């Protein structure tokens, strides 16, 4: 199991889905059962990534494997010499874990879709799109440089556009796809500016090369502010893709796409790419950037959680819960709990995919009914769906023995430690509040959907458990939401192999002055050593992980138990109130809603954010564009046409002048000559005698005139 083999296999994993896409686009209709071809490719990818993951984590756990090749090269550039842009694959532990997560969920979603999408007019097209999505997502995961990251970043945007708008006959779907693409573009534009900052200064896109430069004290434009700006601008890409406030508005609308797509793209993988991006650039984030990121994550998780409380569409609740959980991960990255954020990404991918596929199963059996007010009692009809949904709900609510408990607890501990070290207590406070709300709305969803009496008897009677290809992914994902995959200890994640061996916070390269106090290294010796290694080349193994200062480790350790107890407590409260209101019906939710009407409306209407954007940015742009188009037509073109008119006027005037004055003068001369002619004609009598008289008189006159000469 050599490095080259692993790298080549991962290249194959990347390219196989693309092959599937090309085949399906061109020959999809000619191949019978082409969806099985694509699904088979995904199974192959899954097996290969298991192999790669095993090989990497077993043999090269502390080492990064890199394969790169020249893509674009500028020779002999004046001053700079040579500029090179590479394509490359970097395999580190994060990558192989993500590879596994993406290929697994993608395979399960393919399988689920075989039944879910059956009978659709563009069945093969759907699988082709899934293929191109998987390709782009794997590209994000595998790439070793930020330009390729951006390229695949946009490509997942495209596949997301195509899949959200898959049922483009519906205006809402095509609107949603357009909105998703544009909102993502806002973030991507910021990300591109960030990339420009880095490229302009370092003339490379490769992560490791850039980080090595920063570690050696070479900051962008020699200023820490630019480093912060670069980090935050690149983070803007994550804000767009991971649906963070203020760009979160596209994700709930994206639920217009087919439900398996929501599970794959808009819950488990693509939206998590933002978190992955932050993880990739984590080492170059300054304290200011991290604090901003933490606040963005906090605000997002809070807003989304409050909105999720009142939504009635099963997919909308899950969508907002996704936004909220993504906010959690981003917040965790911001407070420096890198490993827990990534851990949560993985666990969330599984249980949220399970929840979405579960909701797909429900929607499928209810004949495309999505309103939870018309459901209820489905527990008995759909046991597999119910139990897997329940396990995932327990996981997202942070109940012990689930994976979600481990990761969420870590994040909460991280925020608590952060609060105690920096004094930003608001962040942990909001984090716990969100945990409470999460438990509440998720159980509200479960109770309204599966418990109680069916509220729409007709639809209930037709409901049925989904076929095997749909139920199997659910069951598998539910199993993955349990604790034992990640560590033997059900309450302390820190001791499990996932965090202990595989995912560790990397050593930051930011200069000491730009770090949080708790991330400053006490001894400079390790740093010098790290620099030398980094400079030596980016194939150097990052064997020595220096996570945080002792100070921080201590705070983290102290925060662990309080966080666990508190999170259990708030989770319990949330679930309790949920049961009180919707199961036992001791408390009337309508009454509460009535008593806080403005807040309720705010939540129900998603904080009016869409309306605000509509009234400001969209309307503003449209007004500006209308104005400019009119300006162009009337003023700019008006000047041109005006010039033409003026020229024509002048030419007409000069024409008149020419006709009347110039030509008039000519004609007048002729007329005058005529007159003179008529006058002199009088003398031309034709009589010789007259002529003689004139000769004589003329001679006399001449004589008179010239008399002085005589």
């Amino acid at each position, binding site marked *: 199991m050599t490095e080259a083999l692993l790298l080549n296999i991962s290249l194959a994993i990347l390219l196989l889905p693309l092959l599937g896409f090309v085949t399906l*686009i061109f020959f999809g209709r000619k191949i019978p059962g082409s969806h099985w071809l694509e699904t088979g490719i995904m199974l192959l990818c899954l097996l290969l990534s298991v192999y790669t993951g095993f090989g990497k984590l077993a043999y090269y756990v502390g080492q990064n494997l890199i394969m790169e090749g020249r*893509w*674009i*090269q*500028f*020779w*002999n*550039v*004046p*001053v*700079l010499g040579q*500029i090179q842009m590479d394509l490359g694959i970097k395999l580190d532990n994060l990558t192989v874990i993500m590879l596994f997560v993406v290929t697994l969920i993608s395979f399960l979603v393919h399988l689920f879709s075989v039944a879910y999408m059956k009978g659709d007019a563009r069945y093969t097209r759907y699988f082709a799109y899934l293929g191109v999505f998987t390709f782009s997502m794997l590209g994000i995961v595998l790439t070793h440089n930020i*330009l390729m990251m*951006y*390229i*695949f970043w*946009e*490509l997942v945007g*495209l596949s997301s*556009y195509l899949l959200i*708008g898959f049922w*483009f*006959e519906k*205006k809402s779907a*095509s*609107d949603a796809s*357009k909105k998703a*693409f*544009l909102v993502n*573009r*806002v973030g991507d*534009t910021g990300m*591109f*500016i960030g990339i*420009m*900052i880095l*490229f*302009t200064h370092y003339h490379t896109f490769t992560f490791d090369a850039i980080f090595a430069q920063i570690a050696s004290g070479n900051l962008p434009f020699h200023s820490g502010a630019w480093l912060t700006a670069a980090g935050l601008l690149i983070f803007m890409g994550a804000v767009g893709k991971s649906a963070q406030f203020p760009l979160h508005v596209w994700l709930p609308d994206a639920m217009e796409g087919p439900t398996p797509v929501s599970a794959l793209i808009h819950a488990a993988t693509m939206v998590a790419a933002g978190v992955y991006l932050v993880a990739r650039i984590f080492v170059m984030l300054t304290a200011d950037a991290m604090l901003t990121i933490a606040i963005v994550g906090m605000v997002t998780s809070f807003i989304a959680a409050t909105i999720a409380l009142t939504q009635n569409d099963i997919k909308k609740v899950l969508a907002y819960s996704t936004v909220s959980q993504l906010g959690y991960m981003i917040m965790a990255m911001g407070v420096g709990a890198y490993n827990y954020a990534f851990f949560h990404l993985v666990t969330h991918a599984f249980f949220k995919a399970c929840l979405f596929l579960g909701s797909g199963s429900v929607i499928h059996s209810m004949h495309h009914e999505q309103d939870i007010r018309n459901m209820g009692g489905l527990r008995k009809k759909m046991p597999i769906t119910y139990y897997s949904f329940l396990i995932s709900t327990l996981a997202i609510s942070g109940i012990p023995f689930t994976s979600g408990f481990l990761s969420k607890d870590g994040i909460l501990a991280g925020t608590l430690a952060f609060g105690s070290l920096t004094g930003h207590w608001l962040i942990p406070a909001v984090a716990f509040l969100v945990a409470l709300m999460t438990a509440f709305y998720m159980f509200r969803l479960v109770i309204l959907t599966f418990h109680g009496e069916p509220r729409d008897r007709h639809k209930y009677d037709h409901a049925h458990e989904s076929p095997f290809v749909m139920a199997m992914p659910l069951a598998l994902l539910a199993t993955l939401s349990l604790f034992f995959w990640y560590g033997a200890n059900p309450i302390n994640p820190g001791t499990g192999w996932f965090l202990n061996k595989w995912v560790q916070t990397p050593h930051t390269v930011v200069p000491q002055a730009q770090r949080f106090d708790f991330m400053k290294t006490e001894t400079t010796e390790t740093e010098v050593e790290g620099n030398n290694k980094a400079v030596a080349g980016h194939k150097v193994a990052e064997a020595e992980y220096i996570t945080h200062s002792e100070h921080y480790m201590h705070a983290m350790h102290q925060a662990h138990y309080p966080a666990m107890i508190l999170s259990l407590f708030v989770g319990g409260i949330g679930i309790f109130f949920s049961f009180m209101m919707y199961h036992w019906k001791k408390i009337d939710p309508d009454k509460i809603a009535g008593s806080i009407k403005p807040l309720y409306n705010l939540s129900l209407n998603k904080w009016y954010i869409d309306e605000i954007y509509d009234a400001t940015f969209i309307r503003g*742009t*449209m007004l*500006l*564009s*209308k104005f*400019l*188009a*009119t300006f*162009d037509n009337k003023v*700019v*073109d008006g*000047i*041109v046409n005006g010039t*033409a008119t003026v020229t024509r006027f002048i030419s007409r005037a000069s024409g008149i002048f020419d006709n009347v004055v110039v030509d008039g003068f000519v004609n007048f001369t002729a007329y005058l000559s005529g007159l003179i002619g008529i006058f002199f004609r009088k003398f031309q009598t034709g009589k010789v005698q007259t002529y003689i008289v004139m000769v004589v008189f003329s001679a006399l006159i001449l004589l008179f005139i010239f008399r002085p000469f005589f």
Partner: protein
Amino acid sequence: MAYFPILSFITMLPILGMIIVLCLPGKQEKLIKGFSAVITGIQVILAGIILHSYNYSLPGVFHQNSFQFIEKFRWIEIAGLSSSIGTIKIDYFLGIDGLSAPMVLLTALISFIATLSSFTITKSVKGYFALFLLLDAGMMGVFVSLDFFLFYIFWELMLLPMYFLIGIWGGPRKEYAAIKFFIYTLFGSVFMLLVMIGLYFSCTELMANGTRVFTFNMISLMDPNNYTATGILSPLNPGNLRFIAYIALFIGFAIKIPMFPFHTWLPDAHVEAPTAISVILAGVLLKMGTYGIIRISFPIFPEITRQLAWYIGLFGMINIIYGALCALAQKDFKKMIAYSSVSHMGYVMLGMASLTSVGMSGAIFQMFNHGTITAMLFLAVGVIYDRAHTRGLDDFGGLALQMPVYTGFVIVAFFAAIGLPSMSGFISEAFVFLGGFSNNSLRIITIISTLGILLGAGYMLWAMQRVYLGRLNEKWNTLPDMSMTEYAMFIPLTIIIFVLGIYPSFMLDIMNTSVNSLVEFMTKIPSNISAIGKF
């Protein structure tokens, strides 16, 4: 191959074709169409041969000997008119380097595709194709000539057939559009002519017999040592008018780009012109403006270019944002794409203004990519206009259901125009931005310009939604999908867009050496330019 005058051949072939077309009987429409396609097809093959035997390591730009496929003959020589004028000498001087090779390729390709797209012409076919071939020769000549006078002749030669092609085969307001195009361009040409004559009387070239005579040779015009001490545009003359001349020349080229505020001829010309002519217009003609700036304005006036680079970048930014916002408000499909051209040519200007290798490569690459992508967009409009005889964005809806293959190509074209990675437009736009950003003074302008990629996605996707998505408008449920001719037009463009998007080095390597030497030339002010930018 070395002695075969391939550039003359590729330029004059369409003129030969035109003569033969004129001799063919006008009734034989199929013959004429087929013959024209063969002529332009041979041009593509010749361009391929040029590319094949092109030497990537020769820079060209301002080294006379490192141009390739050079043909240089004395064309006009009138000796001893008077002592002040001396010998009038004009060379027939052709040659290409990394700046013009992509444009030659583009011209050949777009001409061929436009010929295919012209097969739907029914009105006086003979006249159409004769003019079309003349136009083709004019465009090709502009990109291969290295003598300013010759350049100017080809520049004007292209104007006349274009006028008739819009004015006779155009839409309802064709006369207005044709005359607007003609007068606008002629207006610019006058400036160019003045500057050309001014340069002629300021610059001398060493002859074989040791005497110095005035010259139109562009390469000689780039060397400050060739200037006379008293020439009106000589950098050695303290009272020179180079600054004014630069602006005049720039306006001449800017009209062709078209640069705000000289752009309003473009939407009218596009809307009225037949599809093939729109393709030529957007695909090749607009590039002549930016090519002229890179080939003539920049190296002949390096010191003033550096002085005014910021303003060029600013106008590039205005083009990008303004064009995009105007495109957003359009209701006519063709007009929207016309404004998107304004926006996309802004990137070229921004890239040029950066005066960096990356930005300049991006600019030239963008010229090529805009040629292919916008050609494809206009062809896409042509396809539905031929079938439905309307271009209103709101008149359609759901065409993806009726014409799925066509919509597939349209998606490629639209996303290429948006600058989606893996398609060629992304590389060039990214390079333009990277280049612009590395120039300190253009940094803010570049950041504002990135709004263009956002707005670009906005108008493109909105148009996409209105025309292709949604429920099928019942009026159009009989429209047929693509025909074979249309496949022949779309497939090559699609392949080029993807190939250059995935492996851009095909094109970038051609221009790399030339761009580097141009940038080096521009950034080093020659020491003996004594008076810089006297106003």
